[in-house]
């Protein structure tokens, strides 16, 4: 059910990116899609009543390097978190580039309306 809601979230972003004609709105739509994927990835790794994947001193025997069994059986999946960290930064980068293009286009055309920004045919 949560997964489906997450997919609905993704689709709202897609709708916004495809249908809206304001450039900033389109950017917002793409941001929403990226949020949805990030959220979905983290949900995939969640364990009910789980623990964050950070070991503290009480959970590890520093002499032998043994990690407490309770931690092993309750830790959430660290891999999707690493992926999402990467993908958040990627989306920040593409946001910066996209907004620069929007700002520069605004400087040229004087509008954010893509139906008026139509020099190219087709």
């Amino acid at each position, binding site marked *: 059910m949560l997964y489906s809601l997450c997919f609905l979230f993704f689709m709202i972003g897609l709708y916004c990116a495809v249908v809206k004609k304001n450039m900033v709105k389109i950017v917002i739509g793409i941001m929403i899609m990226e949020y949805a*994927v990030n959220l979905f990835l983290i949900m995939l790794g969640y364990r009910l009543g789980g623990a964050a994947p950070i070991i503290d001193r009480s959970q590890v025997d520093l002499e032998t390097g043994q990690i407490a069994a309770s931690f092993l059986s309750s830790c959430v999946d660290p*891999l*999707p978190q690493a992926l999402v960290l990467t993908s958040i930064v990627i989306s920040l980068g593409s946001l910066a580039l996209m907004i620069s*293009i*929007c700002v*520069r286009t605004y400087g040229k055309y004087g509008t954010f309306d893509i139906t008026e920004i139509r020099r*190219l045919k087709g």
Partner: protein
Amino acid sequence: MIGLLPAFVAIPLVTAFVLPLFGKKGKGAATVLANVATISLVALAVPCIGHRGVYLLGKWSIPLGINLVLDGLSCLLLLAISVVSAAAMLFSARYMERYTAKSRYLSLLMLMIAGMNGVVLSGDIFNLFVFLEIASLASYALVGFGCEHEELEASFKYMVLGSIASAFILFAVALVYGNTGSLNMAYISKAIQSSGMNNGLAFALSLFIAGFGLKAALVPFHAWLPDAHPSAPAPISAMLSGVLIKALGVYALCRTVFNVFGVSVAVGWVFIALGVLSMVIGVFLAVGQWDLKRLLAYHSISQMGYVVLGVGMGALILARGGEAKWAALAILGGLFHLVNHAVFKSLLFLTSGSVEMATGTRQLKELGGLATVMPITRATCAIASASIAGVPPFNGFWSKLVLVIAAVGAGFYGLAAVTLLVSLVTLISFLKIQRYVFLGELPQNLQHTQESKGPMLVAMGFLACLCVLMGLLLLVPALRQSILEPAVDVLTEGVKYSAAVIKET
């Protein structure tokens, strides 16, 4: 050789990081450095021929770490990327003098090369996504490099569709991870083979096809290409049409479909449908164009259709359990056309850049009679046009011939007819280019046009020689067995990929 694999990414990356440090004064040094980097990439790519192997980054065994995989298909793409990028870089040395911020331009171009090399070498699906994003972001910025009205508009359009494609791909990666618990392509493939396809994986596959199809500009997803490719500076158009859509689109598509998910009849038909649609619609839209670069861009769509058609026929025959030799031949035709297209289309875009630089326009109706004033450009353009139209003995002819033979042999007579028809229309539209650009009356305002000089001619001449000689790749058995056939084997072996990669680690 395998130990040097990360250098394919490291060299362009480090060069790209260093280049912005050169200010305005160091422009010459920056150009030299960038050219040295691309030429060293060619020098690295050539010894890769015939090798295959797996490189473990950080010495972590897979699936813990990330691996780089070199096999026939990646080697083929590496060769194409390094050759075309060396030519484009050489061409830029003089062509880009018209623009400001040259060192940043060179840096972006290096980043694009690094991204493409990363994509073709990666053995990890998420890592593939990351490098795909590097190459895509660099290309969005490069399309808008001129900062004129049309360029910014094209760049925005391209960026929106590209970002949607990226989101699709990332969602598909998430679905695959959720279903198999692995990100390494070999392990994903192993998990799929043991548990079989389910709805989730099928949906992920269709998202992959949509996402990579958008990056490859196959026909229902082609809207951005005719705007983006003409708007970029000429060497970038050459890179985009020549290798970017192949490395990010077709290569990634083939890798995921053939080696990770495994072929099926449905996927084969989808490929064939995409291919035929791209071929036919692309070429008929191209004939009506009067803008030189826009015409070439529509032909890119059409020619990519050939590649996808060949690969799709192979997939269909393999999935049906038909005769393996026709499947191999169809895939051979597709992949051979991929490299050929990389060479002749980048050459065509470079000649269009040469024409545009000399005359200041690229409208066919304003041009004419350039044959007398620009003989070398004219000669290279004629060679490339003959190649793309499939005139013997140039390289385009051989790949189209192989495709037609494979289609007839496997019993797809309709597809063979479509291939020939599209080839004919291509010939007509390139006769149109020759007629309007190089023949006829030289207009008054173009009387003082001069031939391009120096590195631009070297780059064009180099690619033109390749166009003439590349038929040998097919005709000389030793070359065929060391370059083309290993690439075909990667695809025909299909999901055996995973066992091979896991064994080699």
